[in-house]
C-alpha cells in the first residue's frame, strides 16, 4: 500500500512581515533624511564692542572654570554693607578679603539657576519698556566662546531691546583680588537714576 507523502508546504515570503519591514525601512529613511541630517544654519549674533567703563553694568556674569557662574546684581550692595557691619572688627585688608570670599561663595550659581535668573530678567524687561539693563559678561580666556553665545541668545530677544550687554575677558581671581566692589547710584543717558555695580581693580 502506497503511503501518501505529506504535502510539502510551499516556502514563501510572509507578506505581513515583508510589509512590516518595508514600513520600518521607510520610516528609517524618512527620519534619517529629515531629522538626523538636518542641515545646520548660521545665525548672526551682534555683540557690541565693550567699553570698560567702571560702574556701568547692573549685572555682572563671570564664568568660572568648572562650569559654574558667579552672578552679581544690585543686591550686592546690601549684602556687602551687612557683612561690613558684622565683621567691622577686622582690619581693612582682612575685611575686604572676607567680604569678597563670602560674596563669591554666596553668589556662585549653576547653569540651570543662571537660566532661571535670565528668564526672570527677560520677563521683567519685556513687561516694562522704560527700564533698561546693562549686563557685563566676563569670560576667562581659555573657555570656549560659545558659552557666552548661549547667554547672549537668551538676552538678545527682548521685545523692547532694553537689555544691553557687553563681553570682556577676565577671571574670578581678578574679582577676588579687586580693591572694592560696591554699587553706585548713577544717572543713565536719559537722566534716570540707576544702581550700577562698580568694581575697582
Amino acid at each position: 500500500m502506497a503511503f501518501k507523502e505529506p504535502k510539502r508546504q510551499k516556502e514563501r515570503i510572509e507578506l505581513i512581515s515583508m510589509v512590516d519591514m518595508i514600513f520600518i525601512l521607510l520610516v528609517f529613511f524618512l527620519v534619517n533624511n529629515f531629522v538626523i541630517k538636518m542641515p545646520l544654519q548660521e545665525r548672526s549674533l551682534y555683540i557690541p564692542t565693550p567699553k570698560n567703563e567702571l560702574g556701568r553694568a547692573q549685572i555682572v556674569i563671570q564664568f568660572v572654570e568648572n562650569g559654574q557662574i558667579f552672578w552679581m546684581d544690585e543686591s550686592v550692595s546690601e549684602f556687602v554693607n551687612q557683612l561690613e557691619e558684622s565683621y567691622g572688627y577686622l582690619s581693612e585688608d582682612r575685611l575686604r578679603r572676607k567680604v569678597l570670599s563670602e560674596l563669591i561663595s554666596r553668589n556662585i550659581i549653576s547653569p540651570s539657576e543662571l537660566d532661571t535668573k535670565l528668564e526672570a530678567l527677560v520677563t521683567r524687561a519685556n513687561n516694562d519698556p522704560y527700564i533698561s539693563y546693562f549686563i557685563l559678561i566676563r569670560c576667562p580666556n581659555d573657555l570656549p566662546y560659545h558659552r557666552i553665545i548661549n547667554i547672549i541668545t537668551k538676552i538678545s530677544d527682548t521685545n523692547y531691546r532694553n537689555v544691553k550687554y557687553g563681553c570682556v575677558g577676565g577671571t574670578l581671581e581678578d574679582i577676588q583680588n579687586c580693591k572694592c566692589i560696591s554699587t553706585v547710584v548713577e544717572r543713565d543717558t536719559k537722566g534716570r537714576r540707576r544702581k550700577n555695580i562698580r568694581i575697582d581693580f
Partner: protein
Amino acid sequence: MSFHKRNEKKGLSLPGLIDIIFLLLIFSLVTLSISEAKVETKRRGDRGVEFDLPESRTKDTEEVDRLLQTLLFQIDYLDPKNKSGPKAVWVLKPSLHDSLSLEGARLIAQRDSLYRPFPGNFLELSDREFRRSPACQIIRESIREYKDQNFFKPDLSNAIEVRAIKDTEFRIVNYILELCSAYGDTIPRVVLRTLTAKEAVGGI
C-alpha cells in the same frame, strides 16, 4: 447530507490594515509636499500666469547668508583633520559688489596666504606676547586697513564678522572685540556667526 459550515473569522486582516496605513502615509507625504509648493508660489506672488523669466546659468544661486558682506575672520583648525592641532585665522575680504561667497573668499585667502596659525601655547602667553603673534598681527592690520577703506564715520551698520568653530577659546574672540572697541563707535559691533540646527520647514 449536512454541509460543513466554514468558520470564517470576522475581523480586520493585518496585511490589509498595514497596506492602508502605508497608503495613508504616502498620501499625506505627497499632499504635504504639494501644499508647501503652493504656499511657496503664493508667497512669490505668482497667481498662475506663467512668465518666461530669464534663468541663471549657474547651478544654484548663493544664499544671502553665504555671501560675504564685510571683513570676516574665520577661525578654524589649521588642518581640519587634526582636531588637536593649532587653530588658525583666515582673513576673508569681501569683493567690491559683495558678491563673493564664503567659500570663494576662503579660497582666495588660502591662495594669497591671508591666514596665520595661532601659537600652540597661546593661552599661556602674556598679553604682550599674544598680541605679537603673527595671527594677531594679521587680524590687527586687516581691521585697520578695512576700517580706513570702508568705515569713514561712526555708524551702527559698521561691523566686523567672526566665524569661529565652537570650541574656539574666548581669548581669540576677545582680542577681536578689544581691537574693534578701540575704534569706538566707528566699529560699534562685531557679528558672531554661529551654527545652529535649521528650523523645521513650515513656519510661513
